[in-house]
């Protein structure tokens, strides 16, 4: 009914000279219409890989081993050929890359970027393209008069990121995926982008997947959150519920590692240890070696990602106990 995207058991491997590493381990999640889903993960969590595998856009040496990505009205994107995926891209789903990662052509001005993108999908009417560009640039609070004829190097990081957002909206996709759109920006520009996305979400009814390493950005912005660790989905649920009654030890530890302005400084602490070696074979839960709740079973059996409360999923052998204790 309300389901827009459902991702089931996606697994992505990378072949390297030293062996195969698993970047995404059987991750499942879903996006309802009108959702803003925050995907949170630290380095090595596979969050970017996950985003690009949703679009069936993993380049070798990476490979999607299994899973399905069902988009409402389209079907399983992982079963589509390259050409068919390309048709879906931009029109149904659009991805906004990081502005820092050479995502714009330095020899083209912003206007050409719009023309290029839209022409590649069959829209050749220049007048129409310019109208769209004008409207969307205004939407992201940029002055089209100035920006349309600007080259990428003339734009600041924050402006570039906003141009990329405007570009992604040209065919009014139902779902927008943003890969760390704010991590290279300072606090002021960060706020600006978040406010802007929120406004677009309300005005255009677009659903958003927002990928970030910074869990603090999610609260007050997203309504749902998916927490990844070492390529595994640890917890998924309503943002406030996850914040107030987390079911997964990793989430608990992560939230406890963020200092606050008024809380007791002795109640927060970093998570000891470090991310498991990607080359090492993980038999149990990838977080077990750093988890203070860990029992022998955690090192032997990888916990399943289960729904403990309606819409609230967690992958931990002890999520039920944790849930009961938290009340």
């Amino acid at each position: 009914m309300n389901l827009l995207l459902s991702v089931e058991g996606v697994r992505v491997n990378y072949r390297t000279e030293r062996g195969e590493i698993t970047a995404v381990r059987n991750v499942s999640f879903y996006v309802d219409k009108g959702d803003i889903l925050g995907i949170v993960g630290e380095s090595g969590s596979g969050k970017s890989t996950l985003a690009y595998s949703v679009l069936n856009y993993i380049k070798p040496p990476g490979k999607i081993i299994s899973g399905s990505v069902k988009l409402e009205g389209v079907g399983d994107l992982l079963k589509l050929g390259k050409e068919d995926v390309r048709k879906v891209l931009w029109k149904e789903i659009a991805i906004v890359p990081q502005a820092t990662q050479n995502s714009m052509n330095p020899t083209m001005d912003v206007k050409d970027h719009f023309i290029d993108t839209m022409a590649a999908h069959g829209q050749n009417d220049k007048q129409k393209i310019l109208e769209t560009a004008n409207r969307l640039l205004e939407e992201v609070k940029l002055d089209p008069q100035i920006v349309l004829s600007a080259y990428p190097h003339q734009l600041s990081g924050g402006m570039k990121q906003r141009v990329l957002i405007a570009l992604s909206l040209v065919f009014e996709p139902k779902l927008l995926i943003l890969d760390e759109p704010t991590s290279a920006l300072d606090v002021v520009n960060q706020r600006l982008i978040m406010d802007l996305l929120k406004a677009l979400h309300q005005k255009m009814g677009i659903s958003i997947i927002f990928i970030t390493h910074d869990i603090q950005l999610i609260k007050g912005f997203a309504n749902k959150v998916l927490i990844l660790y070492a390529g595994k989905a640890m917890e998924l649920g309503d943002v406030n519920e996850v914040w107030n009654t987390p079911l997964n030890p990793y989430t608990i530890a992560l939230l406890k590692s963020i200092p606050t302005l008024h809380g007791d400084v002795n109640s927060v602490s970093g998570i000891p240890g470090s991310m498991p070696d990607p080359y090492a074979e993980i038999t149990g839960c990838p977080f077990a070696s750093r988890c203070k709740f860990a029992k022998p079973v955690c090192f032997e059996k990888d916990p399943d990602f289960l729904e403990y409360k309606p819409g609230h999923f967690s992958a931990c052998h002890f999520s039920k106990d944790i849930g009961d204790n938290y009340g």
Partner: protein
Amino acid sequence: MDELQEVGIQAKTSLLYFDNVSVHFEIKGMDKPLIAVDGVSFSMNDGELAALVGESGSGKSTLGRVVVGLQKPTSGKALFRGKDIYKLKGKAFLEYRRSVQLVHQDPYAALNPALTIYESLAPALRRWNIVDKKDTRKAVSSMLEFVGLRPENYIDKYPNQLSGGERQRICVARALSVRPKLVVADEPVTMIDVSLRLSIVDLLLNSKKQFGTSYIFITHDMALARYFLLKGGGGKLMVMENGKLVEMGDVEEVINNPKHEYTKKLIESVTE
């Protein structure tokens, strides 16, 4: 000597004494210089902790570079133990050079990619005759242990084999290896994963506890600054905006009762 009499007793006894320090950058094609640091005055005593908070572009990094001797101020007095840092010579300079160290924001750039961890850490120990030559490896090992890394797993590694958090621990070990009196930590955990940040901050505080190291902790994150100061037993919070120190005082006092508009704005921007 005149200088000492001029600035008085506080300048003489302080570890660090800054009086009206400004840094201007001449920029080609601009008629006015860029004012990065604008008339900053503060002092630090041995074993004291301070946190310098401000947004990017506020001049906090430049001020940090003045402290460690990398950026000569355009005007004002920057004194270390009562002597102008940028006029130090001979023995006094060497003492300063050893006493004031920096932990850089970017642990990926701060380690030489061509050197193993041992090769990065050993030269400073040798340079300052901190250990006998034959004991260098043992000393490097115990430094690694101090920063929570198992020596046998790290000592012969190259930086590209380590994660950001591990690299930053190495950088902390290197800065502390010469037993400095004051360390400027410039956004030391900004590029580190959230879950690892506090462990690295705690590491800095351990050296304060064990060796009485003073710190100037530079960050854009008010809550992190508060954590650093309170966990370390208290200290002063300095708020910087557009090159000026707009507010300075005890951390709890400033956070609970901010006077300056900008401080209030920074506090409000922290989501809780």
